């Protein structure tokens, strides 16, 4: 059985403009020790998916309306708030996009790492401090004994993201959700952080759910990929397969928009149009207004996610055809 199995998850936000289905029937699973990449533009629902798993969707206005999230044999959506607190930070940990603002400026690094340790592992504050130093060493922070007493503003962005990872892994979670962990970092630091995450995964066996808009990051780290568009998964398969033969027009568009050295192209290829207004989703396939291959069927009704062979799932009326 998979460690995490999300099925038909629906999360919507109710605002003055109406009900916005941010996540609309998303299903996927993730095995221990594997990495699942979730890719999509901003606003496609990937962050809301991760917050739904943590049960941290701000309510109101957000609400999980449907689905199950089976984690380690239990449905997280059936757990009480008190039970959920034992899962958060302990069995499922999360790191966020902005390392500069994700650490509390008024507490030391040691206090912040130690907080989850004392909470979940019932260690004394001295043991927690020793553990914090050990974690800082694990994520490659030099002179951790000194750093543990420092405040976040005394560290660089890359260092802070390492601290965030140390904090997230301090209780040896089974699942790590990384929401755009490298987006706010310099390219050189990005590579270091990804390498660190891969390395720690090999050592600790943590499953990683990696949320990103960067296909390059996915290529480097993920075993499986789910591509999301407007609240739905449009393509899902193994990472190698996705890069070898992308089938959904949106995925193809994303791939084509990556600049290639030596291609000689003067301009970047882009996907025309914009993400649809979530309050007024287009009829039929949600991608059809931006799709070069759209037909009448695409404008009429929504395609289902179908297996086109070998577990390669695509949500497209023309999935069987060779489009690219």
């Amino acid at each position: 059985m998979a460690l995490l199995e999300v099925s038909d998850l629906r999360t919507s936000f109710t605002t003055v403009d109406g009900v916005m289905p941010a996540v609309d029937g998303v299903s996927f699973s993730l095995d221990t020790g594997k990495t699942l990449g979730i890719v999509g533009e901003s606003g496609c629902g990937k962050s809301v998916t991760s917050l739904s798993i943590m049960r941290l969707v701000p309510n109101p206005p957000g609400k999980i309306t449907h689905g199950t999230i089976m984690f380690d044999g239990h449905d997280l959506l059936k757990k009480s708030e008190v039970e959920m607190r034992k899962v958060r930070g302990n069995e499922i940990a999360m790191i966020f996009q902005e390392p500069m603002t994700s650490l509390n400026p008024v507490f030391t690094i040691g206090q912040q790492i130690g907080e989850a340790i004392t909470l979940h592992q019932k260690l004394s504050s001295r043991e927690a401090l020793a553990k914090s130093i050990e974690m800082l060493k694990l994520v490659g922070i030099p002179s951790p004994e000194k750093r543990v007493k420092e405040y976040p503003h005394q560290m660089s962005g890359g260092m802070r993201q390492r601290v965030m990872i140390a904090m997230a892994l301090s209780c040896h979670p089974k699942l790590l959700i990384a929401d755009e962990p490298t987006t706010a970092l310099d390219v050189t630091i990005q590579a270091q952080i990804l390498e660190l995450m891969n390395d720690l995964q090999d050592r600790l066996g943590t499953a990683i759910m990696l949320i990103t808009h960067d296909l390059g990051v996915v290529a480097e780290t993920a075993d499986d990929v789910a591509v999301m568009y407007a609240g739905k998964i449009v393509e899902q398969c193994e990472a190698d397969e996705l890069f070898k033969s992308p089938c959904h027009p949106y995925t193809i568009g994303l791939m084509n928009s990556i600049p290639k050295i030596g291609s000689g192209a003067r301009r970047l290829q882009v996907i025309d149009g914009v993400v649809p207004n979530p309050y007024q989703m287009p009829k039929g396939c949600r991608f059809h207004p931006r799709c070069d291959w759209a037909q009448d069927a695409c404008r009429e009704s929504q395609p289902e996610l179908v297996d086109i062979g070998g577990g390669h799932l695509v949500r497209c009326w023309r999935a069987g055809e060779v489009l690219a």
Partner: protein
Amino acid sequence: MERYILKRVLSVIPVLLVVAVVVFALIHLTAGDPAGIMLGDNATPEDIARLRAELGLDRPLITQFWIWFRNLLRGDLGDSIFLHRPVLQAIIERAEPTLMLTAMSLLVAVLIGVPTGVISAVKRNTWVDRLFLTTGLLGASIPSFWLGLGLIYVFAVNLAKLPSAGYQPIADGVWGCLRYLILPSLALGFPNSALITRITRSSMLDVLDQDYVRVARAKGLSVNKVVLKHALRNALVPILTVVGLTFATLMGGAVVTETVFNIPGVGRLVVQSVTRRDYPVIQGIVLVIASLYVFINLVVDVLYTVVDPRIKY
């Protein structure tokens, strides 16, 4: 840290100098001859001349200031014309009730203001939030003398649970002293809690949207712990500022409250001295209150660095 505190302490000196000059000028800014005003309409020219000599008003202004300032440095604020005692002694005798009243009122204002502000922020845009904000607005709109009279009417007259007026020194028993202070400090503290509520609310709203609050939730902390530990600590700087400012407002408000509740404090002394035109006492009190205000702000500035490690000067 030590350097910062030293720097702040030194920067207080010019401020106090300005205060001293303004307080000195007080007596000279009044229209006409201060000696004549102090003695009233029935004074003879000889009396006025004698008082002028006594107060040194017949000397050049700069000499007057120099003498006044030299005495000030020695802690000599001059003598009261009416009480025939050193001003400083008169103030010290009256200081306890005023300090107790101000401290208790500040406590009331903070104990009402901070919790309601925090709850309002956490329950933003719900009926609880609106209730606290409306009650706060109502409290801020009620003059404290009116609230004082209302409290006397309900608790002292009708229920007869608390004394309606007066004061008992703390040396004669803590509870006895507090009994006399409950109504006046409610009357003075409640209207002043509204500003603290509003500042706490807006400061908390800023902080609650921060990423580190979400991170703290993701660690498995309860909402209460996240709010009280991670959020409130970060929201504290603006709250501290407004609490410091409230202290000054309360010192001013003590004048009215002491009159309503017949408390023999500095506030009453200042009212009496104004009606008696006892200038040296008025000067002394203004000087002491202004210095206290400067001191409170100094304490607030130093507390900033304790609360927020990023603040370095």
